[in-house]
């Protein structure tokens, strides 16, 4: 048995690596995606006052800076037995949509697009945002960065800092929006809608009009048929801040819906000794039966593609039009092609900008009534949101003073752990034949897990782009034959 290791560098949430095993003929026998995503938050949050948790858990990730904050803030409403005021909720949503825009923009321009704009065969040294700016022109690059910066300004205005916000209160928000600030946000929102349109245009020009790329987008090597989960509003449309979790099977049939603590009826996480990341599965679809795809599997994935599959539409006009084009193009629901994640991400960027615009025009947003502090501690709260990367669940128990006694966090990348393993295995089987391994494999394997936008690779969500990979090829006797790396 020959073993190939692909080693991304240690990430903020630890170390991810891919181990590929070849049979004697040099074809792929099996492949594993292994993760360290463990710093012990669920333990060291214990003993902290619940209202301090949001500004603390934000630091789980500096890229998804708004998501752990928002999910735990929603959980704190439950712990303190309080419903946010209408203005408090709208401020949270304004902030959250700004986060969606800047986060999706970074992911698309720094990670998603370079594969297509610069080219999947290009050298990793060029396949990054700098290379992308080289291709599309410095002016567009500067404009994208500037516009994304406006979303960061909204973040700072509402959250206190451009990163790791602090303005959470159970029942609302600690800062009111002045009329002057509202007018400013409204102006920025117009520009961010333009950024959303531009982003879809880039995708259209670069990917949809390119026959070779469409072969990758609709190719079986990047097709992972599993079940899907995401939030929907009362009309069944895609929603981000709050909704009902809907699970569908790989044929599009509804498995069930839940809110809050109901997640425990649907999701169990298995521990496997070869990864620091647990493996969740849909337990209503049968007991744990390993990491499988296709009919009968209880693996599921979350994130932009899952939302496009679970939701029956978008709640804003421009995004709805893009949603319809998306489904007309693939013409089979659910869409199992993982490269479609990038397109879904671009649609959501536009949708978040449209929502931001609506909120900025809402007269209620400047009301001083930002928080409801009629607390009655219940000692338990669950916050579920759709993070840019997918469903995020924060569940806390506290004592009768609101001091945390127990915590459970299930992040988007964890839900996707099984499907990522499947995607990597499939790509490896497709691209490695007869023992032939080359530099190109790096790109294609990257493209198998990049759509999921791994949180463990958050550090790569920088202007620098690529996920650093190393492949070590061993002979059957364990001697190192060859080493390839892109860092």
């Amino acid at each position, binding site marked *: 048995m020959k073993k190939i290791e692909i080693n991304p560098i240690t990430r903020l949430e*630890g170390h991810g690596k891919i181990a590929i095993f070849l049979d004697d003929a040099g074809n792929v026998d099996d492949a594993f995606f292994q993760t360290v995503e463990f710093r012990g938050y669920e333990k060291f949050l214990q003993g902290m*006052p619940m209202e301090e948790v949001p500004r603390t858990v934000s630091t789980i990730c500096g890229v998804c800076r708004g998501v752990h904050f928002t999910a735990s803030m929603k959980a704190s409403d439950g712990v303190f037995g309080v419903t946010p005021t209408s203005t408090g909720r709208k401020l949270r949503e304004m902030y959250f949509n700004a986060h969606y825009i800047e986060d999706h923009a970074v992911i698309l321009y720094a990670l998603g697009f370079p594969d297509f704009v610069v080219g999947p065969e290009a050298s990793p040294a060029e396949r990054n945002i700098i290379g992308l700016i080289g291709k599309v022109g410095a002016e567009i690059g500067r404009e994208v960065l500037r516009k994304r910066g406006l979303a960061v300004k909204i973040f700072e205005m509402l959250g206190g800092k451009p990163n790791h916000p602090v303005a959470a209160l159970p029942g609302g928000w600690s800062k009111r929006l002045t009329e002057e600030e509202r007018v400013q946000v409204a102006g920025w929102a117009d520009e961010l809608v333009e950024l959303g349109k531009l982003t879809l245009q880039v995708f259209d020009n670069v990917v949809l009009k390119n026959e070779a790329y469409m072969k990758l987008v609709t190719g079986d090597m990047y097709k992972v048929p599993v079940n899907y989960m995401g939030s929907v509003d009362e009309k069944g449309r895609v929603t981000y801040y709050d909704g009902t979790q809907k699970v569908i099977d790989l044929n599009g049939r509804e498995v069930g819906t839940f809110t809050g603590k109901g997640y425990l009826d649907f999701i169990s996480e298995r521990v496997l000794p070869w990864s620091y990341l647990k493996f969740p599965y849909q337990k209503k679809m049968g007991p744990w039966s390993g990491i499988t795809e296709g009919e009968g599997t209880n693996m599921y994935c979350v994130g932009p593609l899952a939302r496009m599959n679970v939701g029956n539409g978008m709640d804003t006009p421009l995004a709805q039009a893009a949603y319809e084009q998306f489904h007309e193009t693939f013409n089979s629901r659910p869409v199992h092609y993982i490269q479609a994640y990038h397109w879904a991400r671009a649609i959501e960027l536009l949708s978040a900008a449209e929502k931001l615009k609506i909120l900025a025009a809402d007269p209620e947003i400047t009301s001083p009534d930002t928080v409801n502090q009629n607390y009655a501690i219940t000692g338990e709260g669950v916050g579920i949101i759709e993070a840019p990367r997918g469903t995020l669940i924060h569940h806390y128990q506290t004592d009768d003073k609101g001091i945390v006694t127990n915590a*459970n966090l299930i992040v988007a990348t964890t839900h996707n752990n099984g499907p990522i393993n499947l995607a990597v295995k499939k790509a490896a089987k497709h691209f490695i034949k007869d023992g032939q391994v080359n530099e190109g494999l790096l790109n294609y394997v990257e493209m198998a897990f990049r759509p999921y936008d791994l949180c463990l690779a958050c550090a790569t969500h920088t202007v620098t782009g690529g996920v*650093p990979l190393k492949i070590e090829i061993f002979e059957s006797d364990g001697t190192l034959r060859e080493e390839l790396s892109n860092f």
Partner: protein
Amino acid sequence: MADKIKFAFLLAGGCAGCEMALVDLSENLLDALEHIEVVFWAPTVADVKYKDLEAMADKSIDLAFVDGMVRLSEHEHMVRVLRAKSKILVAFGACASLGGIPGMANIHTNDELFKQAYKDTFSTENPDGVYPQPQYFLDGKYDLTLPAFQDKVRTIQDLVEVDYYVGGCPPHHSFVAKAVEAIVTGNLPPKGSWLTSGKAVCDVCKRNPANEELERLPVETVKRTVDGMPEEKGCLLQHGFVCLGPITQGDCGASCLNVNMPCRGCGGPIPGIKDYGARAVSAIGSILGSEAATDSLLEKFPVLSKLVYRYSLPASRLKSNVR
């Protein structure tokens, strides 16, 4: 301007929020790139590989930033390599300088951290009670290895000499430009110092009673932020909300106070403080007006170490296992 500054940026542990401070320069990042040449940024921007960094001449990098704390052997190795190659090494942000929020893990043993994550959490199903293993033979034929976890979270200065420290979780992007400018112009404090205005959060806080020429009064009751809405005006400490502004560097412009929330100390200690948490306890103690007030502090924050050492336990004299 002379030659471009040779610049390197390494993420050790942590969350990449400090790297985002650079990204958040937005279009100004493109201007910054005209003055600095990025010779290494993991994940790298140019065709520079780890082994290339290892092959670089000692002291060939003008300026290196490291963000994140140290938890894995890879972090340790790269920090040591970068130190050798760099003229100036900056511990950038709360994790690199002080250990940061993930440093609170040092209050617990690794077994406690693992047991919670892999056995006790509500949705975990672990019938055989397995933990992730450094080496595991799956089905007797697949040899799968994981990096072992080190015992404790450490800071950069626990491993190598640090020239300058920058506080903040993360440092504000405007501060990145300031720090680079200070280094370019050679306008620098002695090695081993924090790059800071030296002012405390209170000095830059619009709520400071001194602005109104008011006297500070002893505090009788300690409040959490759920014990009444922090008001838009007036010192939060005077209102009874624990705020660490008096002992924290104010390079943030009192950003948390601007949205009516108290400071939790991410900026790092003002000059002259050896142990942030110890000083926090004495600073809070000095403004509490009575035994009853002290009792209320301990009642409101039963695990006080997770308040006063929220960003700095690994850098403290206690290092860990504070209960």
